[in-house]
């Protein structure tokens, strides 16, 4: 399609000590800065009789807690830092792709003889590297939690020597853990990248009023994908930390 710039992989913007910094890394840094500064500002003067801002933030945290307490029960506080961070970080990272200027403001570079447009920012989760990192963090945490709380019983789920059928089922479970990584990574990447492509194409065809419902849909999809990622992590964490004795 002439004139539309869609690239499957994130483009490199500059190099830092030999490490290529892509535009999705810049977006991730921007959202990290935003969330960290926001968290510091809100918790600067925590009072026992809170003002309005503290009450609002506390009620949001309580809503997120109530969402996860039905899945994890009394271990919710233990897992809360990971799953709440996944929820908030992925949600804001998805929404960052909708900020005006992301994906459209950039530099024209000359590569291999012809002009290539390199946007300065790009939605952080529209890069398979980012989503793969999130997926690996989740799945490795699930394994560590399983081994820590259940010990030998957890390893016994995968290497069951009771009978050949149980052994085969154990190997299938092991492969299931690997497909969890791929499934997490591709679900998040596919939804956000496809949303970006859709918005680019619609803005290319009808720039004036038509993108509005699609941007609304992208807001919704960004929130739902963050929710699904964190809830699936919470569900697998609860499966890994609860004992299933036959």
């Amino acid at each position, binding site marked *: 399609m002439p004139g539309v710039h869609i690239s499957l992989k994130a483009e490199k913007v500059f190099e830092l000590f030999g490490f290529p910094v892509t535009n999705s890394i810049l977006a991730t840094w921007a959202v990290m800065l935003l969330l960290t500064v926001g968290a510091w500002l809100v918790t600067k003067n925590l009072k026992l009789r809170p003002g309005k801002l503290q009450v609002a933030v506390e009620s949001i945290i309580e809503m997120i807690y109530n969402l996860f307490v*039905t899945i994890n029960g009394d271990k919710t506080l233990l897992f809360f830092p990971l799953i709440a961070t996944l929820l908030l970080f992925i949600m804001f990272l998805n929404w960052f792709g909708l900020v005006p200027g992301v994906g459209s403001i950039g530099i024209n570079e000359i590569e291999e003889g012809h002009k290539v447009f390199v946007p300065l920012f790009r939605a952080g989760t529209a890069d398979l590297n980012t989503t793969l990192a999130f997926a690996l963090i989740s799945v490795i945490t699930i394994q560590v939690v399983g081994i820590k709380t259940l010990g030998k019983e957890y390893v016994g789920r995968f290497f069951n020597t009771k009978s050949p059928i149980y052994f085969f089922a154990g190997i299938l479970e092991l492969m299931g853990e690997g497909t969890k990584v791929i499934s997490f990574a*591709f679900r998040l990447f*596919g939804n956000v*990248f*496809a949303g970006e492509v859709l918005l680019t194409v619609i803005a290319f065809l009808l720039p004036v009023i038509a993108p509005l419902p699609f941007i609304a849909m992208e807001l919704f999809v960004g929130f739902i994908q963050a929710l*699904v990622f964190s809830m*699936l992590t919470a569900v697998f964490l609860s499966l890994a930390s609860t004992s299933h004795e036959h």
Partner: protein
Amino acid sequence: MSDEGIKMVATAFTIAVGAVGPAIAIGMLASKAMEAIGRNPEAESKIRTSMILAIAFAEAIAVYALVIALIIKFT
């Protein structure tokens, strides 16, 4: 058929066929969830949460097909 032509056909075919299964799955999920809510309106929020989780699983399959279609088109 030319190289460019077969690429386009492959892209269209991938996403067209890949979206049929998840669409049927999501329809069945939502209809069963609505039946369950109709039978027991008190458990609405629990049913809704489980339904959204299951729909996200089903939609992920359609997203896999979409990612392959995009890879075929853009490389």
